[in-house]
């Protein structure tokens, strides 16, 4: 039997040369006369080890990483020896059994339990790993039963707003309508986040299953995945897997011979951050400018093309599949307070060991950054952490003991958002980061609300004046006043939360603006 080797095909592994590693393995094995079979699996999410190559042995799946083409020859000679297990241990890139790597074994993987194990496009592999068993259960339940199960799980929207998913679904179920829609928000634009991408690239059938269950629950027969155009690999994989799911009878007309239909289509965004906001996303799906809508009406009542619509994030819909499969009580047992289940933490930026870390809510930011991240990539001290994307606050060390819990973060005027953590070392200029927050708002504002559209431009100018020490005291008053106006006078989080990174930078890192005596002349 040929030796089973796994080389990931997710964006990060590819960006680090996985394709070249795979071809070098094939060529090298041919030269040695070694019989190998390469599976292009998804990623485990341990990105600092990518490309992470795995080999099936008698004792389990062992890993080598990060592998580049220069290491291929020596790894193949290990694999070509009589005692692979013993020889492997001597190799500098040997990682041992992959599932035993602490970074992975210390996680509580529910949504990402299948990530990186098999070829994500292989529908049989998905089925072998309990795939579609949530759907099978859902097919035996009424819509109300499915919604009740979701309510009982305590699942809250993972896109950032953390609204209880079951209540949203209940509203759509209760709203009469011939045509309803399920929309998946896959416009993952926050810097420092990649969990949606990883799920779509490493376990796409789970998303397809979750959306189909949502369709059954609320009575919708059409779904759209609104995917950002910055994710070409996910685009390819989603289209392929949707096609395969239709062929296998899990999607399209007459799902699993139930007499119910669920059609699914991927729609590409076009490079607009604001389209991650759900009403802007709906406008964009309708073929319009991504202008934010006023609420009410809620999308659950008047959503896509004016019809009742569930809009959920990729991770929310992914979690649905595992909640139906394992039961809502299991899911609910993870977490703290009103934050139930697990959070897909994404550790990014200037960090030694970045990646996807799925953990029950309640662990502190410091535990994640210290235990998993193990310091900065540059080796310098950490100075600031931005949590929750470009609209999230910059947190100084005094706040790193905050537990990952929606309410605990809200209490310190910060947010968990979509779970992205960006680490900055001590070379960061926090005034420049505050300026960038305003600049980003200038570039990405949809333009509907004046405080967001104009306020952000004025914000850049005012920060420039503060840094240049032009009438600093008065400009500081002006900046706070401007932040108030943006927070209170914008329809959505773009204008409403851009002040969060700006104000936190000002509050905790004022010396970078030239304010404290340390840098003042």
């Amino acid at each position: 039997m040929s030796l089973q080797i796994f080389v990931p095909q997710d964006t990060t592994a590819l960006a680090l040369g996985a394709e070249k590693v795979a071809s070098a393995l094939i060529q090298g094995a041919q030269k040695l006369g070694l019989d190998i079979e390469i599976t292009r699996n998804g990623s485990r999410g341990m990105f600092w080890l990518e490309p992470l190559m795995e080999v099936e042995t008698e004792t389990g799946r062992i890993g080598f990483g990060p592998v580049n083409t220069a290491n291929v020859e020596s790894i193949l000679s290990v694999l070509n020896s009589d005692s692979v297990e013993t020889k492997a241990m001597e190799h500098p890139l040997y990682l041992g059994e992959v599932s035993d790597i602490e970074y992975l074994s210390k996680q509580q993987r529910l949504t990402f339990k299948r990530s990186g194990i098999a070829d994500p496009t292989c529908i049989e592999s998905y089925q072998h790993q309990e795939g579609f068993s949530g759907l099978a259960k859902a097919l035996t339940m009424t819509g109300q039963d499915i919604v009740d199960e979701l309510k009982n799980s305590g699942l809250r929207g993972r896109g950032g707003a953390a609204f209880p998913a079951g209540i949203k679904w209940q509203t759509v179920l209760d709203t009469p309508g011939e045509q309803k829609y399920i929309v998946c928000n896959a416009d993952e634009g926050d810097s420092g986040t990649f969990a949606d991408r990883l799920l779509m690239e490493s376990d796409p059938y789970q998303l397809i299953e979750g959306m189909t269950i949502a369709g059954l629950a609320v009575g919708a027969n059409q779904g759209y995945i609104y995917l950002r155009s910055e994710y070409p690999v996910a685009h390819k994989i989603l289209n392929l897997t949707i096609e395969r799911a239709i062929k296998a009878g899990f999607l399209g007309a007459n799902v699993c011979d139930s007499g119910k239909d669920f059609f699914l289509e991927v729609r590409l965004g076009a490079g607009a951050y604001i389209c991650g906001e759900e009403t802007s996303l709906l406008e964009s799906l309708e073929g319009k400018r991504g202008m934010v809508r006023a609420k009410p009406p809620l999308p659950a009542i008047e959503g896509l093309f004016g019809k009742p619509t569930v809009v959920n994030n990729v991770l929310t819909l992914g979690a649905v599949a595992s909640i139906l499969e394992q039961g809502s009580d299991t899911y609910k047992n993870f977490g703290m307070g009103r934050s139930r289940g697990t959070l897909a933490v994404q550790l990014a930026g200037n960090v030694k060991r970045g990646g996807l870390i799925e953990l029950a809510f309640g662990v502190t930011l410091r535990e994640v950054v210290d235990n998993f991240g193990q310091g900065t990539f540059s080796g310098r001290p950490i100075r600031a952490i931005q949590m929750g994307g470009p609209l999230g606050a910059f947190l100084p060390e005094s706040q790193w003991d905050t537990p990952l819990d929606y309410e605990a973060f809200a209490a310190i005027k910060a947010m968990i958002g979509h779970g992205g953590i960006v680490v900055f070392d001590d070379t960061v200029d926090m005034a420049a980061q505050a300026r960038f927050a305003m600049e980003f708002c200038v570039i990405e504002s949809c333009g509907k609300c004046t405080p967001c559209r104009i306020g952000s431009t004025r914000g850049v100018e005012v920060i420039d004046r503060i840094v240049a020490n032009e009438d600093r005291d008065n400009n500081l008053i002006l900046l706070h006043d401007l932040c108030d106006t943006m927070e209170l006078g914008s329809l959505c989080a773009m204008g409403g939360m851009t002040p969060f990174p700006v104000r936190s930078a000002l509050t905790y890192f004022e010396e970078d603006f030239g304010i404290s005596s340390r840098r003042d002349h």
Partner: protein
Amino acid sequence: MLDINSNVDQLIEQYKTLPGGLLPLLHAVKEAVGYVPESAVAPIAKGLNLSRAEVHGVISFYHDFNTHPVGRHTVQICRAEACQSMGSRDIEAHAKQSLGIDYGETTTDGLVTLEPVYCLGNCACSPSVRINDDIHARVDRSRFDELMEELSHASPDAFGVNS
């Protein structure tokens, strides 16, 4: 020009009945022509029963829809926070200086158009650069130069998803 117009007309036929079809149509036009030409606005408006202002409004709203021809390769540098924390501001400056162009411009030999991008979802291995449909991780100055060197030797068709 004739070619472009007949191409666009064909695509309009294909997409005009698709619900919310304007964005998919514009992506298809961009794919076929390389950009969204001004001459496409009127026929698209007519085909989709929209005003020209509406079509123009959509094209100008989204960063993806260039209205002018671009270089043979599109190089995007991530400007978002995770990449900033790993030195992307330096890569931006280096790219602009070494290519001799600013964002939104094309090198005089028509090889490269430089664009900013806000997150490629590769934030654990920053800084990231996208070249056509390939994303590259941990790009520093010398890696950027290597990538540009490869572009100058490659045929335009040689670049798919991480080929």
